[in-house]
């Protein structure tokens, strides 16, 4: 190819090992609308998710914009108090349940899990399509709730406000979340069985790419956590419609029980959001450092450990509710221990990069952003797991900043890294490295500008969920709102250059970044409808970069 532009020279370094089939790939083998809407192909379902969750992300982002505009001035002048409540509730619900939870598992997971393990498809293709339509139906129901007038309870639906006092559309929204929850469960179930039963010959557990380990751990959390929130929302609906008192202290119920049940899912849900990003980061760092992953086994096990710890730390959301101090101490200690596997991962990535031949392509820049933001988010989590400081910081902007560092700085940066890394595989096209790097840089700067001031605001005592604040907090809030506009630019840019790339981008070869996993070494870009020409046979561990050629052979 004659066009070697300055910003996209990396992919010229790596030879095309599989070749390109311009005539038959999963995107163009059938153009009819029905072939997309009723597809059983995991790759197409992944793209359906990509389009839908991007729309939800834009909606959630617009709501965040409304919140930041209101907080530009100390007085409530842009939104009314009630609208503000509904805006942050809708922002939280859409971003968590309809964007972050399905983001990497449903888009990249669907696309990559069969490709990475040498399978023709996921174990249950029809169930996979059903998951997508459950997600779609759940989204429609949730949007209906918003159009009817919205919900003002916050995404946590705390009782007794949600069950007794709120006059908003709690039940409609709960039904939407119930439905989308089953989408999440079925996706997780599908991946678990796929990883267990669909691996190609020779692909033992310890030869699995680390992305697969993290998706596997995520799927276990989805399978075990989500049904609990489903039944909790069901009980909330029963209490609200029948006027019974399962969570209402006036009627003998216990509102703290709601919080326990809610966080039993919703804390592990944080790991549904972050674990896949950890997996993406492992892949990206190995590929762009041209080096074996340092501590493969310990990274794999730390994914499992995070999933397990995730289930036994939920009460750290409730330190100020008057739970037993002894229980609080145990939960505090367990919460601290989540830092161990997280730290192991960060140090292993650093050790992977050490001495590596690092190239600074867009996915790697995003992964660097991820590393920094995830570390800040993780370390500030320790402030909150400390019982004493949590009393001071609870329900302040410190919390808001902390979880945005994890979920936006961590999870979305990882998602963006993954989308950029696998974009040539998904679409068969290269995107502009220049715009890619620029957007990664702007996102990183905009993000810190938006959320770092909120740590200080929270420490100074600004509570979350209020639409007005004392004058003295205005400077930092202006910083934050200004940062949010920069962040919005950073997030909008990929919409344009990626769309452009999809139609007009330079054709990608089968392995433009020199990746070492089966998705890169044994499939075309984009892959053919049935993924592999011949079932691959794996004879080595992944990430074999020490002067060896790709050791994955076909037979």
């Amino acid at each position, binding site marked *: 190819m004659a066009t070697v532009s300055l910003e996209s020279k990396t992919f010229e370094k790596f030879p095309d090992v599989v070749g390109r089939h311009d005539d038959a790939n999963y995107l163009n083998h059938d153009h009819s609308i029905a072939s997309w809407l009723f597809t059983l192909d995991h790759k197409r379902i992944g793209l359906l998710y990509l389009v839908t969750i991007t729309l939800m992300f834009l909606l959630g982002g617009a709501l965040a914009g409304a919140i930041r505009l209101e907080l530009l001035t100390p007085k409530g002048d842009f939104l009314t108090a009630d609208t503000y409540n509904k805006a942050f509730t809708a922002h939280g619900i859409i971003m968590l349940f309809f964007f972050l939870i399905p983001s990497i598992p449903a888009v990249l997971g669907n696309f990559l899990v069969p490709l990475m393990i040498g399978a023709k498809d996921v174990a249950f293709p029809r169930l996979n399509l059903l998951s997508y339509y459950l997600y779609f139906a759940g989204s429609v129901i949730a949007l209906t709730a918003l159009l009817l007038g919205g919900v003002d309870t916050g995404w946590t639906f705390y009782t007794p406000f949600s069950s007794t006092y709120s006059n908003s559309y709690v039940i409609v929204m709960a039904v939407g979340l119930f439905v989308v929850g089953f989408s999440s469960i079925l996706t997780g179930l599908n991946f678990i069985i796929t990883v267990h039963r669909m691996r190609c010959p020779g692909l033992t557990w310890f030869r699995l790419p680390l992305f697969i380990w993290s998706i596997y751990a995520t799927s276990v959390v989805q399978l075990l956590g989500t049904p609990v929130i489903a039944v909790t929302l069901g009980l909330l609906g029963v209490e609200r419609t029948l006027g019974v008192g399962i969570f209402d202290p006036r009627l*003998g119920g216990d509102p703290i029980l709601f919080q326990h049940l809610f966080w039993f899912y919703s804390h592990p849900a944080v790991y549904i959001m972050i674990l896949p990003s950890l997996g993406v980061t492992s892949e990206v760092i190995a590929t762009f450092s041209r080096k074996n992953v340092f501590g493969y086994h310990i990274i794999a096990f730390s994914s499992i450990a995070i999933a397990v710890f995730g289930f036994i730390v939920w009460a750290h959301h409730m330190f100020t509710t008057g739970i037993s101090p002894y229980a609080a101490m145990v939960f505090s200690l367990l919460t601290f221990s989540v830092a161990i596997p997280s730290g192991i991962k960060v140090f292993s990535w650093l050790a992977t990069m050490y001495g590596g031949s690092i190239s600074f392509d867009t996915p790697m820049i995003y992964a660097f952003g991820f590393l920094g933001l995830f570390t800040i988010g993780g370390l500030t989590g320790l402030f909150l797991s400390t019982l004493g400081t949590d009393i001071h910081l609870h329900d302040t902007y410190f919390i808001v900043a902390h979880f945005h560092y994890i979920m936006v700085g961590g999870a979305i940066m990882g998602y963006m890294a993954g989308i950029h890394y696998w974009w040539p595989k998904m679409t068969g096209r290269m995107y502009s490295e220049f715009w890619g790097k620029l957007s990664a840089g702007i996102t990183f700067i905009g993000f810190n500008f938006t959320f770092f001031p909120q740590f200080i605001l929270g420490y100074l005592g600004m509570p979350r969920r209020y639409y007005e604040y004392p004058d003295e907090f205005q400077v930092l809030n202006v910083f934050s709102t200004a940062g949010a506009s920069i962040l919005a630019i950073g997030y909008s840019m990929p919409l344009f250059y990626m769309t452009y790339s999809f139609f007009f981008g330079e054709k990608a070869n089968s392995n433009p970044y020199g990746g070492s996993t089966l998705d890169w070494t044994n499939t075309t870009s984009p892959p053919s409808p049935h993924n592999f020409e011949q079932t691959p046979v794996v004879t080595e561990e992944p990430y074999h970069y020490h002067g060896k050629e790709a050791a994955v052979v076909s037979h």
Partner: protein
Amino acid sequence: MSATNETVQDHGQHHHKDLAHHFDTLEQQHDANTLGMWAFLLTEVLFFGGLFAAYTIYRYKYSAMFEEASNHLDITLGATNTVILILSSLTMALAVRCSQTGNSLWTGRWLLITIAFGLMFLGVKYVEWKHDYHIHLMPGKDWSGKDYWHWQYAKKAKEMETEAHKKGSAEHSLPNRNDVLADNDPSLGVRGIQESQQARLFFLLYFCMTSLHALHMLVGFVLIGIIAYFAYQGAYSPEYYSPVENIGLYWHFVDIVWIFLFPLLYLLGAHMGH
């Protein structure tokens, strides 16, 4: 494998007619299907688990009232249903066995018999719920606690009867209902109101758990019906019977949930007598 069961694919490999394109062997497909059902049942355990957790906590907090409230459920009907459901598990196991041995006719028959037992269960449940409604056990909005006073009355009457019996006195009279009510008048005691609400929580959990269980049975009927239809069509063979096996796993799960519900709801206060 008979020749009619095979089709030759593009790659010249032989594929069984029941083998989906993305699996390599029937065994792999069977393993994946079975494991998938077990994973689904794990989700179901957690789904019911939320209710069982709520039950456990209130049972611990309000144990006395839970035991008393439990005594208002009909053990005979509950026990009958337990037997019916265990029988349906047997017929389901027989259906799975028949599908493994290639007996399509009896696979279908045993599945339909399983549905019949399931319908009997729901019939009994309907009679029971209707009875519960008539004796004012519904925990809905109009729960005023009046039924609680009624129980207090009945309990006191029973106590007086026992006492009279012990003394050998042949004659005893029931206390005036108004006397009992006066002792427990809502305006006189916060405790009475609290206990009434605790009993209400018990019935709330009773109705939630048994309804969710019944809902699972209804879903089961539809699925068993579809699989029975395919069984009559001869869709299952000793090489391919995982749909029958999986619906069997599901049905046994629904049974096991009931096996836990029965003692927790019905037998809780049985030692106290009626």
